[in-house]
């Protein structure tokens, strides 16, 4: 193909970096030009990612960036802000998977992180999630892929705002359950198999940084708690919502269909029969789909909204590629059409 775009992945030996490489490998428009790793410098991609053994590509050092069309950075928080000038020199389009360019202002980084070293970029960066920011992505130079837990939550709640069911001052509890890949490839004692297996472990009872993103996009202060559960991939958010007035199940369907009926990566699952009646992370494992569903609890004047994504896909690498597709004017779903497995265990 003549119009193939070249792509680099900084942080290619990590979990989301590996997913990016997998997606780019089979993407009809991209070609992998470079993948960096300091630890695995000069080793094959397959030495870290067994599913990439067929690729004849080796990791290279991140200080040696090639010129490419798109650079994806999948590095820990704080790394991209240090190197953003270099990244922008190397590529016209930079998609960053870390939190470094998600928030709008330096103040937010002071409050939620440890400040920011190049706040001038914050204004021009665009949040990657097309479901809430599609119109601003075309032509963007710097794209900030969302946090996985924030993504799950925003996707679950957004239709309620669009439909006027929520306005931002309501009480909303978000109880999240996530898999171990969310912690990245470098784990400590708590993430060893013996300690991490079989857990329902509160790992962020309060004060999770993704609250900042949610507030920024929904204008909503959420009560947010995250639990680690026994899966590798997946993030599932249960939002307990207390609207001001009565809401029927019909209202809910109206709201969600309005927001998502034409979205290529959103599935609505709310009741029905069979085994899979509500969103489940294992139903979207490996895919860029987000599932949302809901139930109305009249006795408590509560809406319960469920949202499930694969943290490595819709929650990071898939969202990043989706946004790059939109930014560059490619087919939105290019490279992202895998729809999932059945049956599947604990992916």
């Amino acid at each position, binding site marked *: 193909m003549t119009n193939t775009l070249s792509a680099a992945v900084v942080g290619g030996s990590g979990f989301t970096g590996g997913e990016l490489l997998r997606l780019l490998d089979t993407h009809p428009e991209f070609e992998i030009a470079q993948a960096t790793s300091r630890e695995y410098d000069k080793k094959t991609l397959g030495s870290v990612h067994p599913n990439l053994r067929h690729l004849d590509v080796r990791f290279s050092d991140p200080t040696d960036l090639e010129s490419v069309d798109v650079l994806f950075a999948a590095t820990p928080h704080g790394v991209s802000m240090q190197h953003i000038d270099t990244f922008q020199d190397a590529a016209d389009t930079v998609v960053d998977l870390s939190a470094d360019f998600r928030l709008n202002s330096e103040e937010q980084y002071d409050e939620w992180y440890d400040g920011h070293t190049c706040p001038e970029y914050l204004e021009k960066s665009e949040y990657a999630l097309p479901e809430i920011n599609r119109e601003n992505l075309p032509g963007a130079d710097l794209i900030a892929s969302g946090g996985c837990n924030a993504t799950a939550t925003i996707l679950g709640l957004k239709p309620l705002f669009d439909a006027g069911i929520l306005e931002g001052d309501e009480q909303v509890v978000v109880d999240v359950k996530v898999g171990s890949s969310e912690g990245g490839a470098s784990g400590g004692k708590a993430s060893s198999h013996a300690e991490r297996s079989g857990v329902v472990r509160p790992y962020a009872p309060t004060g999770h940084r993704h609250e900042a993103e949610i507030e920024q996009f929904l204008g909503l202060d959420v009560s947010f708690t995250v639990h680690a559960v026994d899966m590798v991939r997946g993030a599932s958010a249960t939002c307990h919502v207390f609207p001001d007035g009565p809401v029927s*199940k*019909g209202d809910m*369907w*109206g709201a969600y*269909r309005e927001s998502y009926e034409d979205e290529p990566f959103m599935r*609505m*699952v*709310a*009741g*029905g*029969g*069979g085994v899979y*009646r509500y969103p489940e992370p294992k139903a979207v494992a490996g895919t860029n789909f987000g599932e949302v569903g809901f139930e109305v609890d009249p006795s408590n004047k509560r809406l319960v909204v469920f949202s499930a994504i694969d943290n490595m896909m819709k929650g990071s690498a898939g969202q990043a590629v989706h946004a790059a597709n939109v930014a560059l004017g490619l087919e939105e779903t290019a490279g992202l059409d895998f729809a999932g497995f059945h049956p599947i265990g604990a992916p």
Partner: protein
Amino acid sequence: MTEAECVECGGDVALSDDLETGEIIDCGTCGAELEVIDVNPPVLDRAPELEEDWGE
């Protein structure tokens, strides 16, 4: 092929021509199990739910 509206989600449900009263089909949008109450014109209603006992 005719269509009817799902009573649960409002989505369109395509109905085959050999539809019979009492048949249970599911809505392709929301998955609700719908009973065919009448065929001409087609009327659908939510099928009585089989409650799963999960042990309490």
